[in-house]
């Protein structure tokens, strides 16, 4: 198991380096340069050169990437072009908001989705199963930003049950939780449907397999067979999908953070891209990549814990 974890983590590091290099290149290909954005079109050549020097933009791209990684290892992601603050500080200040939002969203939707999926599989073709099916598909079809806008209008503006904007008072846990309800509802809703469908399909497949028939032939209780024998196998694809889904969750979080004016990585990326604030963009993108790579790696490790066959596979 340990060797599997080490192997998987090594792979994750390689992926991170490749992905970050690629993103670095892509960001530099965005039209418009930060120097004119900052100094305006009428700036003197000397002033421009000085700023380019300070941002490292006069070096070849490869050297810039190399420097970026070298500095990154020291925890230095550069200086915010506008505020002169450390990018690392700025980004780290936003990461917890996004992470909390994403984890809450996927958490509640996974619990409800898995429960609904099991129910549907156990009561196949019943009224409840069909209702769950219709609701699931509707939930999948509604984009997160639509749910954000309407839940904001309905629950926050009209009914005034939940706060409309912000992330709550720092230090006040209850208040922060209260502010988390609508955004995580918006992001998680489509996942409920998605996970429910996925779990139902794999449960039905597993329940038809030979080992379930064996368990029945030994008179094991049906609940035992469902939750101990079948669910453990049926959950494997769902874990993988959630791991990969972190990417989609991050992009859903961008919209939601903007609609609810929540601080977070998404809002930071949008703000810094519009101002060509390269160091901040790179910093936020780096952390998004890290979150994504970490979640897929974690998903693989969880699967290996659940399924011994994966551990021994090379």
């Amino acid at each position, binding site marked *: 198991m340990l060797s599997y974890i080490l192997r998987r983590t090594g792979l994750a590091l390689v992926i991170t380096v490749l992905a970050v290099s690629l993103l670095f290149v892509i960001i530099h290909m965005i039209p418009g340069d930060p120097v004119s954005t900052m100094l305006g079109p009428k700036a003197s050549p000397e002033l421009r050169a000085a700023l380019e020097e300070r941002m490292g933009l006069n070096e070849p791209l490869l050297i810039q990437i190399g420097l970026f990684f070298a500095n990154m290892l020291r925890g230095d992601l550069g200086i915010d072009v506008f505020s002169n603050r450390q990018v690392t500080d700025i980004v780290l200040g936003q990461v917890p908001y996004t992470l909390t939002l994403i984890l809450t969203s996927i958490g509640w939707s996974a619990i409800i989705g898995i429960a609904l999926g099991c129910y549907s599989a156990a009561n196949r073709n019943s009224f409840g199963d069909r209702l769950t099916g219709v609701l699931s598909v509707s939930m999948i079809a509604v984009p997160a930003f639509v749910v954000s806008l309407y839940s904001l209008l309905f629950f926050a503006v009209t009914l005034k049950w939940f706060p409309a904007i912000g992330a709550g008072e720092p230090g006040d846990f209850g208040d922060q939780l209260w502010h988390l309800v609508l955004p995580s509802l918006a992001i998680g809703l489509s996942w409920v449907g998605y996970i429910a469908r996925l779990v139902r399909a794999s449960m039905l497949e597993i329940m038809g397999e030979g080992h379930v028939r064996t368990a*029945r*032939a030994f*008179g094991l209780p049906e609940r035992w067979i469902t939750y101990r024998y079948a669910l453990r196998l049926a959950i494997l694809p769902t874990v993988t999908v959630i791991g990969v889904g972190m990417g989609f969750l991050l992009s859903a979080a961008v919209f939601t953070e903007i609609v609810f004016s929540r601080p977070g990585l998404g809002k930071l990326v949008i703000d810094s891209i519009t101002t060509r604030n390269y160091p901040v963009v790179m910093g936020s993108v780096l952390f998004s990549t890290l979150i994504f790579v970490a979640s897929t790696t974690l998903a693989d490790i969880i699967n290996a814990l659940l399924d011994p066959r994966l551990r021994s596979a090379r």
Partner: protein
Amino acid sequence: MPDTNVLDVKNLSVSYSTPRGDLKALRNVSMAIGQKKIVGIVGESGCGKSTLISAIIRLMANNATVHSGEILFHNSNLLDFKEREMRALRGIDISMVFQDPMQTHNPVLTIGQQMIDIQYRDKLSKSKKRQRAAEMLSLVGIPDAQARLNQYPYEFSGGMRQRIAIAMALMAKPDLLIADEPTTALDATLEVQIIKRLEELQEEIGCSILFISHHLGVIAELCDEVVVMYAGEVVEQGSVRDVFHSPAHPYTAALLKCDPGHIKEKTRNLPTIPGEIPDLVDVPAGCIFQDRCSRKVPQCQVKRPLFEAVNEQHSVACHLNNKNADDSDHKEARG
């Protein structure tokens, strides 16, 4: 054969509802298994062997319906049992070994865990249950049983897994073991080993075995009695000796002719039975085997042959056996 039978299936009819109509998978099937007897069922694919055993253990497909008949296990009708009562029986009084050992065990739980789980009704400590599991594994010939309990199914070969399946099935010392083609997925040397082991264990535990196979050699080796099924009906049954040496039904005779073990001369073409199983949604009148029978007489098309005794332990459903039928035909059929 009065009440000494472990299992007594009487006039069992089962059908599956399909989009084309009811598929009559079993029609008036009767058979019995005496105490400490090994009874084999032979027949080609689709003859209803699997339907019969899933009806006995009552783990049938959702679209299956039992129309009539009784399945008496120690003289109580299993078809009247509630699901809860049936579950109490499974794995304890009646247990099963399935065809494909690669699919029999849960892939993500250790063999030890699964062998402990099936003892869930016993009020024993976990280490006692583990001990018992290890003893069973040694009994079926798995060396180093204690250590192997910690392994997962994928770490065992097919033959090993089938031994484990047998160990699990016999752990509770059942009265009846149903073995559904337990050696079909294994190679020939393993087949012999498994059959030998099964024979020894049956002796030791004193259970009855219902053994499904289409390998006639295995049936002849292992079983006391044999039931020949064709297209959802029993066509012949009797002691292995009688049925194999003097088959009274043309189908049995043809089956024996097709068995590679019986072929002495070099040949490029293995014999087959021409034709195929009739459509069981629309069962034709008369004898079920008439289309493929090489020895058909006029009444085969109109009248269904009744089960009649050839001798005390041997009976057959064929007009040729009827005393009114042509006597020379009859002799030829049995030769």
